[in-house]
């Protein structure tokens, strides 16, 4: 970053430093505007453009920006530009444009002002230049102050503590609605729905089919009566009975009775052969 004389010079540099040459700060532009060839390039880089250079000249000469003496300022500026040209530095068009502007203002200042018909206030040819200078100076200072604000990674760091998580897989959630939709998709796909409309009663039977199969998991014969849970009440018993019949029909269980009124045994159809 190049440093320049500025009220709000970036931290660490004296205000009067206008640039650096070979690492040594340059504190002043030479009074007579003779600029050593090596320094010129440095100085050119030190300014952000013609407005910046003009502001420097104005502040340095302690000129009231609201009442700029155009003749000496223009002369100084032109000398500076001339010096740059003398050293064959490629002058940015912006610098030449400003030179033309200054000359134009100066000539308008020198002309006798034509008496105006009305009492309208006079136009100051410098007004626009002053406005631009002040607006630029304002932004230049604002930039320096922004740069001084504490900034992350330069002046402080965000705190970021590692988040420990159990290495459990995040399980998908399923809602009843999902199940319903899934079934409807199946139904839509096939003609299943005509044959397999699921009724509540049927579902209850199917639930008991599963319960009975779980009770028969030992692969052994179980006494028929023990399959029934009497706490379920009459309706439950009927459903359990229907479930058993359905299991028989689907050939999932085998029911045996050696003789009339003898105990009825139930066994999973896939169980290893018991006594037969």
């Amino acid at each position, binding site marked *: 970053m190049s440093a320049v004389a500025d009220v709000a010079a970036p931290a660490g540099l004296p205000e009067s430093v206008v640039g650096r040459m070979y690492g040594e700060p340059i504190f002043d532009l030479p009074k007579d505007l003779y600029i050593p060839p090596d320094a010129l390039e440095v100085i050119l880089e030190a300014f952000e453009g013609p407005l910046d250079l003009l502001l420097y000249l104005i502040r340095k000469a302690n000129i009231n920006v609201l009442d700029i003496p155009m003749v000496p300022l223009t002369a100084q500026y032109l000398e500076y530009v001339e010096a740059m040209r003398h050293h064959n530095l490629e002058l940015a068009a912006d610098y030449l444009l400003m030179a033309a502007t200054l000359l134009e203002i100066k000539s308008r200042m020198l002309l006798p002002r034509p008496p105006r018909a009305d009492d309208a206030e006079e136009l100051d040819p410098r007004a626009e230049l002053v406005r631009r200078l002040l607006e630029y100076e304002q932004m230049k200072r604002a930039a320096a102050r922004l740069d001084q604000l504490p900034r992350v990674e330069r002046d402080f*760091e*965000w*705190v*970021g*503590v*590692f*988040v*420990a*998580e*159990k290495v459990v897989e*995040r*399980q*998908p*959630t*399923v*809602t*009843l*609605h*999902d*199940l*319903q*939709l*899934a*079934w*409807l*998709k*199946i*139904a*839509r*796909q*096939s*003609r*299943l*729905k*005509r044959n*397999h*409309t*699921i*009724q*509540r009663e049927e*579902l*209850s039977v*199917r*639930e008991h*089919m*599963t319960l009975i*199969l*779980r009770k*028969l*998991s030992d692969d052994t014969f179980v006494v028929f009566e023990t399959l029934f849970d009497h706490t379920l009440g009459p309706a439950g018993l009927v459903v359990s009975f229907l479930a058993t019949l359905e299991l028989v029909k*689907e*050939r*999932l269980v085998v029911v045996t009775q050696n003789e009339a009124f003898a105990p009825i045994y139930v066994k*999973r*159809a*896939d169980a290893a052969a018991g006594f037969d």
Partner: protein
Amino acid sequence: MLQPDSTEEFKRVIETALLAAPAPLPVSELRRLFEDDPGAELVRNTLFELVNDWQGRGAELVQTAGGWRFQTRLEYQVYLDRLKQERPPKYSRAVLETLAIIAYRQPVTRGDIEDIRGVVVSTNVLKALESRGWVDVVGYRDTPGRPGLYATTRKFLEDLGLRSLTELPPLTEIERIMDLVDLPKTEEPAVQS
């Protein structure tokens, strides 16, 4: 302030570096915080002090392969999870349909499921449901190959907040609506009963 002027301040520097570090810091790195190397032992003792200081807090100082770092305690995961934007993953259509068939038609074999869905049911689908603890094999059908009979488990009911299978959403009503609304969309003209 180039060197901390007290042991308390020394600890604060190490704590602050660990709080802001994007990765675990080994002792060798922590020594570099100071202009004059405090040595490994002093740093290590300070780390142990910090571990104590953070007892009972929401984060803890732990030693990992890469060095020391602060991390949140597992008990706080339940809170932090609520801030996560990401939705939990969704099961594929195949998994959901298989689950629906097992739930509504249990006990069913893999073949039954394939008959109903009209496509082959991959092993992964059934594995996903089994490892979730939602379905299991409750028996075998006495047919060639003795295929396993799948049914839903108690955990399935619990996880979906059901007391019994009869509390599954009834399908008749919606199927009726579907017959009215969606019929034109089916491939083959369905036969109305």
